[in-house]
């Protein structure tokens, strides 16, 4: 039979799905073993057991001095920044995207500007951002906003443009004003797309967040990673990397679920 027609049975499929994770884990363990053999104090690839211990400590034991558990503080601080930045971006891109998609005047004014904006490397502009927004939370949120809004806006505007012209005309024949068309016809139809855009942009948002926290901060996941890099505490770094991965996964899953629940009309197709 052709390979494309061969379908693994249920238990085999589960095993296959686990395979690459097992392989990565095994490769890491062996690498770690080899290095620790040569230098028992090697910090680059700590043993999995060390990572597990460190993780447990980071999640549960408060700091000696401040009596606070850093990991949770870092998580809350980073998530607040992330959600702030992504939320503002979502709102902005929705507003501008609707305007560009629906209004020819807005389209003429903004579409090429946003196309250019989306090509600017935001990290290089950090110094200017600092001056404009200070070193506090604002500039971190703004970096995320600048980093992901142009892309989201372009995509949303495109989706608004793809709403069949028939619907826009139909709404007009029912007496809808531009505002009603925006709110009642276009907005609900691009909301699902907004969510998938947010999902797509979250990777970049994390990146900008970590970069901003590395530059000036005293709490946050990115801050901690770059701080402990100063003494190559890879056990801490790896714990944080895994934790960020898990957080990213949960957020993605929540958004996917939200999208499915909130937009029943998307899926009730025949």
């Amino acid at each position, binding site marked *: 039979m052709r390979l494309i027609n061969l379908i693994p049975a249920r238990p085999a499929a589960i095993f296959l799905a686990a395979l690459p994770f097992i392989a990565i884990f095994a490769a890491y363990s062996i690498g770690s073993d080899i290095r620790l053999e040569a*230098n*028992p*104090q*090697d*910090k*680059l690839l700590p043993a999995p057991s060390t990572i597990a211990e*460190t993780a447990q*400590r980071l999640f549960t034991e408060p700091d*000696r001095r401040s009596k606070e558990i850093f990991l949770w503080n870092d998580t809350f601080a980073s998530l607040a920044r992330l959600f702030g930045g992504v939320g503002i971006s979502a709102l902005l891109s929705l507003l501008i995207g609707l305007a560009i998609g629906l209004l020819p005047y807005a389209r003429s004014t903004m579409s090429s500007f946003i196309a250019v904006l989306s090509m600017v490397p935001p990290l290089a502009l*950090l*110094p200017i951002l*600092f*001056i404009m927004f*200070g*070193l*506090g939370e604002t500039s971190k949120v703004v970096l995320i906003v600048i980093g992901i809004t142009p892309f989201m806006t372009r995509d949303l505007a495109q989706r608004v443009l793809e709403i069949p012209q028939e619907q826009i005309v139909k709404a007009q024949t029912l007496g809808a004003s531009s505002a009603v068309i925006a709110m009642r016809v276009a907005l609900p139809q691009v909301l699902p797309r907004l969510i998938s855009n947010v999902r797509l942009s979250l990777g970049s948002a994390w990146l900008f967040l970590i970069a901003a926290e*590395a*530059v*000036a*901060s*005293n709490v946050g996941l990115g*801050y901690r990673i*770059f*701080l402990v*890099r*100063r*003494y*190559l*505490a890879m056990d801490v770094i790896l714990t944080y990397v895994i934790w960020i991965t898990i957080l990213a996964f949960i957020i993605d899953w929540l958004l996917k679920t939200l999208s499915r629940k909130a937009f029943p009309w998307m899926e009730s197709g025949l």
Partner: protein
Amino acid sequence: AEEKTEFKLAWSIYVGWMPWGYLEDSGIMDKWADKYGIDVEIVQFNDYIESINQYTAGAFDGVSATNMDTLSIPSGGGVDTTALIVGDYSNGNDAVIMKGEGGLADLKGKPVNLVELSVSHYLLARGLDSVGLEESDLDGVINTSDADMIAAYATDDVDAVVTWNPLVSEITGSNPTANVLFDSSDIPGEILDLMVVNTETLAGNPSFGKAVAGAWYELMSLMAAGDEAALTAMAEASGTDLAGYKAQLAATEMFYDPAAAVAQSTSADLPTTMTSVAEFLFDKGILGEGAPSADFVGIAYPDGSTTGDAGNVKFRFDTTYMQMAADGAL
């Protein structure tokens, strides 16, 4: 240890380390390496910490680092490391700067921006110590990347920074109200800029030590003589001009003469300095969670004495090769 013929050194941009880049570019290093039948490659890093990390992980045989970072990263990480060359000590290159009038005591209740856990942090701790303050008396320290320190200083959020050259002269030069409260000239000899190498590698390959020391002190004599070409090249590589570079050198106690470097290494103050550095590091948790106390890592001095755990010596000051240079024996 095994013998080998190819060696790699890492360095990053800092006034006292600029010679390393020039050694590679000018061919002086190659000349000395050829003399000893080996090959030495000198690689520049943009990111200082990354260069030390790479050395610690074994990707390099040596790296330019301060005494403090050597103790915390490679030595704390179990890599037995030797200070092959003591290049200089910071004599004003690192500074605590505040906006406006006042003294160290006025830092109380203010946030301070600095690269956390770096020599800046140490300098601040020493400064606060001198006026009877502690870090907890501040409104916290905010980790700020050195690359963005100048931009950070320009914002209203920042009251005080601790940083190093060329950033210090950049800040004091362009901000009339910048007020240096405390600098490394107040703690001479405590912030040492070194070339550290893997102890085992050095032990197995003395010619490596000889070649590097030979090349370094050849260039030192050129610099001491004010060689325009060399100084200009280094100035440009560090992103400034000759005048700017000379100003930075003025705040650096370069040991052009190997004998001076030997003297620094054998100075009686060194063990005291290293002990206070170790305590600082332990206090910040940098020596690792496994570190039971500040003397968890042992440090050996040229006279054979040690501080810290003598059974776990991972940091050695060794004057052998500097002495050879001083004796003209290379």
